[in-house]
């Protein structure tokens, strides 16, 4: 299914400073019933990530961290069962998972002799039962499980989507008898950066010549698209895939290939 730029923009419009929670997503679904949840989530995620990239730094100043931590401590002191951390994140307009990470890091700094390593933090975020403090464990869990744009579960979902679409795409290519090299083969040949597939014989889709196909769990908006092309694919770049790829959501590969790769 192909989404127009106008549609995308309309959806993106509704997402300005909306917390990335289940509730927000539900409202979005009510507003755009014709779009699938996956598409909406993808756009939400994309737009929210842009927002976070812009504001990330201000949440990581020493003062900000200190003030968040104090507010968290005060909050749980009053009521440990209340969603203190989640509300704090929503209030300061920051992703709950990321807020959980900030607080967890700060907490560990205070309670451990050595500063916590990144892998320790990640592992605690993935499995909060490893967090020594029960209250904090619950708070962190609540944050990660309620965050629909960041956090270990979301990462896993994105990864899974990427993988699924690669499989789908491979099947479609096989079905259509298009000869291709996949990522593993390319890597074995010594390419360092690879798209998912390179077509050994290019095909034309709606007047565009397609040489390679990359399926991404994230949404192909203009900005990420440019960055992506730049980082990864100039060596394979031959033609105007840009417009085509643009505004085809996570479902693009499935849809596009079904529609066009005939």
């Amino acid at each position, binding site marked *: 299914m192909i989404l127009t730029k106008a549609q995308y923009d309309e959806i993106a419009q509704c997402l300005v400073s909306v917390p990335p929670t*289940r*509730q927000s997503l539900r409202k979005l679904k009510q507003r755009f019933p014709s779009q699938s*949840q*996956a598409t909406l*989530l993808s756009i939400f995620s994309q737009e929210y990530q842009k927002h976070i990239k812009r504001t990330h730094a201000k949440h990581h100043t020493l003062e900000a961290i200190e003030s968040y931590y104090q507010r968290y401590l005060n909050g749980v002191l009053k009521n440990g*069962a209340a*969603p203190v951390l*989640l509300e704090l994140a929503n209030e300061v307009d920051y992703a709950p998972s990321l807020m959980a990470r900030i607080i967890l890091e700060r907490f560990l700094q205070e309670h451990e002799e050595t500063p916590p390593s990144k892998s320790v933090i990640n592992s605690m975020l993935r*499995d*909060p*039962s490893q967090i020594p403090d*029960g209250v904090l*464990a*619950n708070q962190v*869990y*609540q944050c990660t*499980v*309620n965050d629909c744009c960041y956090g*270990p*579960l979301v990462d*896993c*979902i*994105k*990864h*899974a*989507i990427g*993988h*699924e679409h690669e*499989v*789908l795409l491979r099947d479609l290519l096989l079905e259509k008898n298009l000869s291709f090299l996949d990522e593993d083969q390319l890597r*074995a*040949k*010594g*390419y*360092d950066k690879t798209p998912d597939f390179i077509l050994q014989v290019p095909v034309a889709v709606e007047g565009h010549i397609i040489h390679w196909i990359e399926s991404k769990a994230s949404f192909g908006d203009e900005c990420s698209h440019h960055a992506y092309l730049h980082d990864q694919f100039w*060596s394979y770049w031959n033609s105007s895939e840009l417009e085509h790829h643009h505004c085809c959501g996570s479902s693009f590969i499935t849809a596009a290939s079904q529609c066009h790769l005939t």
Partner: protein
Amino acid sequence: MAAVLESLLREEVSVAAAVRWIARRTQSSEDSPGEAAVLRSLRPLRKEFVPFLLNFLREQSCRVLPQGPPTPAKAPGASATLPGRPGGPPRGGRGARSQLFPPPEPPSPAAEAPLARRGGRRRGPAPARERGSRGPGGPEEGVGGESLPWAGARRLRGSGSPSSPSLALCDPPNLSNLEEFPPVGSVPPGPAGRTKPSRRINPTPVSEERSLSKPKTCFTSPPISCVPSSQPSALDTSPWGLGLPPGCRSLQEEREMLRKERSKQLQQSPTPSCPTPESGSPLPSRTGSLTDEAADPARVSSRQRLELVALVYSSCIAENLVPNLFLELFFVLQLLTARRMVAAKDSDLEPGPGVLESVGSPLFQSIHDCVFFAVRVLERQFPVLSYLDKGTLKLLAENERLLCFSPALQGRLRAAYEGSVAKVSLVMLPSAQAVSFQPETDNRANFSSDRAFHTFKKQRDVFYEVLREWEDHHEEPGWDFEKGLGSRIRAMMGQLSAACSHSHFVRLFQKQLLQMCQSPGGAGGTVLGEAPDVLSMLGADKLGRLRRLQERLVAPQSSGGPCPPPTFPGCQGFFRDFILSASSFQFNQHLMDSLSLKIRELNGLTLPPHEPNDDEGEADVDWQGERRQFAMVLLSLRLLAKFLGFVAFLPYRGPEPPPTRELQDSILALRSQVPPVLDVRTLLWQGLRARRAVLTVPWLVEFLSFADHIVPLLDYYRSIFSLLLHLHRSLVLAQEREGEMCFLNKLLLLAVLGWLFQIPTVPEDLFFSEEDQSDGFQVDAVSSEYGLDSVPVVDQQLLYTCCPYIGELRKLLASWVSGSSGRSGGFVRKITPTTTTGLGAQPPQTSQGLQAQLAQAFFHNQPPSLRRTVEFVAERIGSNCVKHIKATLVADLVRQAEALLQEQLVAQGQEGGEAAQLVESLCSQLCPHGAQALTQGREFCQKKSPGAVRALLPEETPAAVLSSAENIAVGLATEKACTWLSANITALIRREVKAAVSRILRAQGPEPAVRGERRGCSRACEHHAPLPSHLISEIKDVLSLAAGPRDPEEGVPPEHLEQLLGQLGQTLQCRQFLCPPAEQHLAKCSVELASLLVADKIPILGPPAQRRLERGQARRLLHMLLSLWKEDFQAPVPLRLLLSPRNVGLLADTRPREWDLLLFLLRELVEKGLMGRMEIEACLGSLRAAQWPEDFSEELATLFNLFLTEPPLPEPQLRACELVQPNRGTVLAQS
């Protein structure tokens, strides 16, 4: 100038600041005000600093290295003070200069000694000699060997008058000639023109023995062979005093000025305690014996000072402030390999108080100093050294002095040597292949009449006759080109009446020139482009050995020092002599036209840009081809440009620059009217802009090297030189920016430009003076981002081919190793060729060589397309063969390796040991099989080539021709493939095996369970199961609902949960879309779901009264989960999480607490074998350690006991479980 060094030595000025100052950078803020002040006062002298430094070093080394003359340097700084020289610094400058000397310095005899000696010498015989040499010493063309005048002087000295060189020095010096160039060092009488023709280069004093040998001319550096004989003799008692070459004149002047200034100061100073040594001051006695001396780092005399000077010197080199990088390297290596020195008297060396660190005291007081200095400089030049050829690197790495003085550098060099693949062959294979008949141009239709056609054919014959005769005779002593062939050539030229016949002949001439002279083999008469292919049919293995042997036998001993004059080696000599003998204006004009055209054509040739991301292995083969193509084009261009330069400047070539200024001006006015023969300036601009300098500059240098004295003064060429100078300065090797020129490309340009700047006709002050306008050099390289410059087109072979003089470094080092170099004027060869009778007459004809000739002859008679076809087929089949071997043989070997590795892993029980060791052992087993590659490759080429040739040649090709073509194609393809394979197969196998091993070891992973056998989905599966991502997302929603916060109306319908678990089952069964991380997360989520079920924490949608899940439903769901865990998950399920404090803690909040589900779950886990009893007990045990509310702890303890009292035999659900609430049992029984 000296003052600058002084300031440096006294640490008033930092080295960095000084180099910035010299480089004319804008003053940097890093300079301290003190430094700035010191430097500002010295500004007028800036231009002269580098020449001064170079000369200073040469002179200092001259003092220490008795056997060697200083490696010369241009000394325009000194020349600027020549009387009457226009454009020199104003006289007034001297006043300023005098103040530069530090006033309080008490003079010391030691410090003055060298000056005194120099002065004495100068006032002695030197002027006479100079005048003498100035006289008839005209340059003359074509005079090859010469004995240098000072050699005679040396002999005289030897015969007993060591202290007085006497007038014998006035010997007619005209023997010291360079081909076609004025003897460096002749000073024109009277006021000089704008170019000062004086020698900027110190010629070489030669030992007595040397005068017998016929050394090639070397005008900028001492020939290696000038290392003295090993016998310390009376000759050497005054080894340098008299041997100071006239080229040192400028140096002397500089020194003398220094001395004068000093004496002035002395006169002004209040305590003129020391008399100024004036003329006639005795030469310091050198009583030390001359023996080979071991250098010892501990005996270096003034480390700090040497270190400083080395730093300044290296910085100048690094900034390209010196004209010729390789000349400086050569000089440094000379210092490194200095054999012995004259031990001066201690008193001589003892510096007076206060001047310890001044310039006045000799810099190099011992061999230790020299070596120390050299090693310091080499350390800083390591990047350049590391790009030299393998042979040079080896010699450097094995140099014991280097090891002794800097083990670190030696280590790096050794590493560089081991990693280097730059084997450079200096072999030159002379061969004269006639240009075949060119049907397109040489047929009758292209001639005006039968007669013209006929004449042309006759001329062709004459031309080849002349050529053959030259080939046969030119090496015979006494044979003279002009005498032997001149008249015949002129007669032939006379027949060329019509313009069109001229153009035909010129085409032939040019083709023949290219064919004979241009080749990867080098400047010398080497095989033409295609010939190596044919030659390589000899077979890869034999050929390599043959080449090496030939190289050792044939390579010239010396190409004439590190800066030889332009010459016409080998076959090129024929063409030069032909042009000279023909002396036909028409011919020359047509030749220039034709050469210009061809140069334009080749210069504009699009060379395929290299695809950096191409797959490496087999692409090597193709990439080699591209590189070779570039080399071919470049060498052709250089050859053509050289001849164009030769012919174009021939009419103006004169031995000397015009004697008077007036004459020069009139000539200039005249010449500026003449349009350039080829618009090289535009081509240069285009080249720079398109970033193809690496192609354009080398041929331009060849062209300019034949310029006459006036040329650099013409505005047109002046701007070219200035462009080249700026280019030279901009090629800083240390800068490796993105998109910049590749290192070797830069090195090539630096080498050729440095060589050009040393050509006598290029005014010496050009290099040091032009830079003032340096800010104007900004080539707007807008057009193409990826020009040739940034493609690594130059390799060491090409570098050494274009600049054979770089090989002098290797020869110098080799002569050090061989130990005795002086004797024969050359190097000791390890191989003495024993020749059979008719040496040189007929090359020995092996059957292979004959085959090659036959093939050549075969192509000669066939249309060119045949040859192209055969070569194309050979090229492609060879390349395909490599790919094929990689896909078959190598892939098989890798499979074997994998099997072996698996065995090994099983045998050793997962502990395969170090990956590197594994790779080693596997490779040692498998690499020998690589030898099969050659046989298989041969078979492949044998099988594939004939068909391809047949398909590409016309149907009508005669059978015999076809079969010959096929055979040649097979041979060439085999050669190509086998060469590559024999060189690379082992490395290829290693690489692949290594990759396979790391792949397997990685797959082995830390979790053996993950690696367990994976079941795919059943064959009937249509992959319609829900996607894992969807499921994770759904489960996450449930989890987040349970974790809250939630709106009152939110909840999960009970059917939904059941449905979800059903879907999970489907997904886990169809594994099409499942990736390990997704499965792991699903497993973890399912465990959390179970915990929520047990704790009854899932908000259920429905009437408020039933917001809890029915017990039976919960149990059913738990059953589903248990079955999923048991049957469907292939990833490990983190069941222990069920008993983590956090998840058990969920129960704590519920009122009333219900434990039966948990107990049920635990029992089921045990029953299904998902968890062991012991494991659960351990978990429960650790649970008790956590902090709980009092009552919860009690309940937990009860649960624990209950679980413990369970009989191991499972009959679980029938037992009532009496925890706290008595009704538990009933609920339990109901289910």
